């Protein structure tokens, strides 16, 4: 590995998307260029080119030392980009922004891409790669949201039995009781229970046919596997996304994974990879990404 990149190897850009401008930072390789461009797609919650604790910045500078060009960018309506804010919908990822970024890199002679996406960004990476698999050398999802749910409704959208099971597994009965000491928490749990009970009475509640894996997740994965694009999943052992992934393997997802063979790699790290909320998990996830990328064919 060459010396880690610094801002000396970086330059900010605004990439035109129609009338708007996507802001990004391109990190040039500090080692011998290998021809691959890594594109970092941000997670939701208005995370910018920086990422939690500069994970995107650190990742870009480390990969540049291994010869990769790396571009991290803000979606339109986020960070430094222009345009109005848009809701983060897992079933409607911001693909246009990403395609503009890939086209911009392509115009500069970089025509083989590795896409890295966390949470919402994983859906963006999958959707963008699905549309141009020939140009994609690999897609890393660390971790992806496997099923669809509204903003802030990850837990509330679960079947009641599963939500309770996960809450108990996470902190035990004592932790749940401790949380319920708060009047606000009690009100919130009461409202969630009433909502779930009402949905069941009306026949709209998730029952045995609950969709653990979104078709918008399986379809692009299937197409990437068909196109022989390597895919990496990084999950935290106990996080919701991993539990959803495991539950979903009993259906179509399992068939796709079984047929994928070595194309799909699943790496499990300790803790909760979603949100990269601890220093330890950040290090583990970045190490997993780097090792997997290093093993990709570069030409």
């Amino acid at each position, binding site marked *: 590995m060459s010396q880690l990149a610094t801002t000396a190897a970086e330059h900010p850009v*605004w990439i*035109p998307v129609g009338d708007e401008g996507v802001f990004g930072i391109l990190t040039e390789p500090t080692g011998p260029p290998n021809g691959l461009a890594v594109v970092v797609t941000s997670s939701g919650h*208005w995370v910018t080119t920086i990422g939690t604790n500069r994970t995107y910045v650190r990742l870009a500078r480390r990969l540049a030392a291994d010869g990769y060009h790396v571009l991290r960018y803000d979606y339109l309506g986020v960070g430094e980009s222009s345009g109005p*804010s848009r809701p983060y919908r897992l079933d409607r990822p911001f693909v246009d922004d990403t395609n503009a970024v890939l086209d911009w890199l392509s115009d500069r002679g970089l025509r083989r891409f590795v896409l890295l996406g966390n949470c919402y960004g994983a859906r963006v990476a999958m959707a963008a790669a699905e549309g141009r698999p020939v140009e994609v050398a690999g897609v890393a999802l660390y971790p992806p949201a496997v099923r669809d749910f509204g903003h802030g409704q990850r837990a509330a959208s679960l079947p009641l039995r599963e939500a309770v099971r996960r809450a108990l597994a996470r902190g035990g009965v004592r932790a749940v009781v401790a949380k319920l000491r708060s009047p606000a928490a009690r009100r919130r749990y009461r409202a969630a229970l009433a909502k779930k009970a009402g949905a069941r009475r009306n026949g709209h509640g998730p029952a045995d046919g609950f969709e653990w894996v979104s078709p918008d997740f399986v379809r692009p994965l299937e197409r990437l596997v068909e196109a022989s694009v390597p895919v990496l999943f990084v999950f935290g052992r106990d996080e919701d996304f991993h539990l959803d992934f495991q539950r979903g393997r009993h259906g179509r997802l399992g068939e796709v994974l079984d047929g994928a063979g070595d194309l799909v790699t699943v790496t499990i790290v300790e803790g909760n990879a979603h949100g990269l909320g601890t220093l330890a998990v950040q290090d583990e996830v970045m190490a997993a990404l780097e090792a997997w990328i290093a093993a990709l064919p570069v030409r």
Partner: protein
Amino acid sequence: MPRETSEAVNGPARFVDGRAGTEEVAEFLPCGTGERLLALRTTPAGRPATGGVLVCSSIANDLVKHYRREVLLARALAGAGLAVQRFQYRGTGNSDGDPADLDRDSMVADAATAAAELDAAVPGAPAAVVGTRFGALVAAEVAAGDTRPVVLVEPVLDGSRYFTEAFRAKLMQGLATAKGERPTAATFRSALERGEVVDVLGTPVHRALHDSWQGRTVVDALAGPSRPVLLVQFGDDLPLRADLAKAATALREAGHDVDVAQVPGRETWWYLDERELIRVGGGGHRVPGRAVAGEQGDAPPDRPAVTDGLIGAVVPWVAAQLSAARSAR
């Protein structure tokens, strides 16, 4: 008027928004240490700026959460004819530097570097300083020796208290997940004294940062020349924070002309993901006319209201202060 972008390898990037009448420049500024910081300047397009505004951002997850608001605030200020300079401290964001080296001296020096860049962009124009959360401490220090108007948004008023809050936030997160013996704030302080790094919600707190801000307060930093000060609190339906009310009184007693604005909405500082707070029984705040965070489906939680309120409170105030400063010259 179309929007235009331009770039130069290893040079600044520009984005002109003809509809908004603003121009933005992103560049890396040298700081004299061999390192560079990312600086972003928003100016009125096609007309000279009549004043300048330096924005001192917060750090850690607060930086991420408030980021877009500062961008939109900068664009609104530029729309009012002012040049706005934002930057990211070395050791944070997209700038160079190791977070272990981040401390009061480096943060204030970086703010001074950005201020000099702003002065060069609008020479001779009056300027104001805006600081958000932890950035309020930096704003107060960098403005200490002059009479620039200062805007402090949801300010951290006491450096020592910030780290107490940080450790408390870490403990709250631990309540939802930890089993067995639980640490205390004293545990984390001891770890810093031993030279260890404390992981606060995924962001490292190093001893240099912690120690260098102990005992530093906004009120002490602004003990010098009198000036206009605007204190902004999120939450117009809440009583004024006790520490903010106390600071307003102290600043008035020190001779400053202090205004206080409370704007609609809330922010769950510290927590990048609202769900982290929901797990420990917080969050779920009710804003009139808006859904409770976590129940609102597609809509981002109360963000537009906070941003609109912030812009509505800050832009006219800063414009009026700088206009008065121009008239007084």
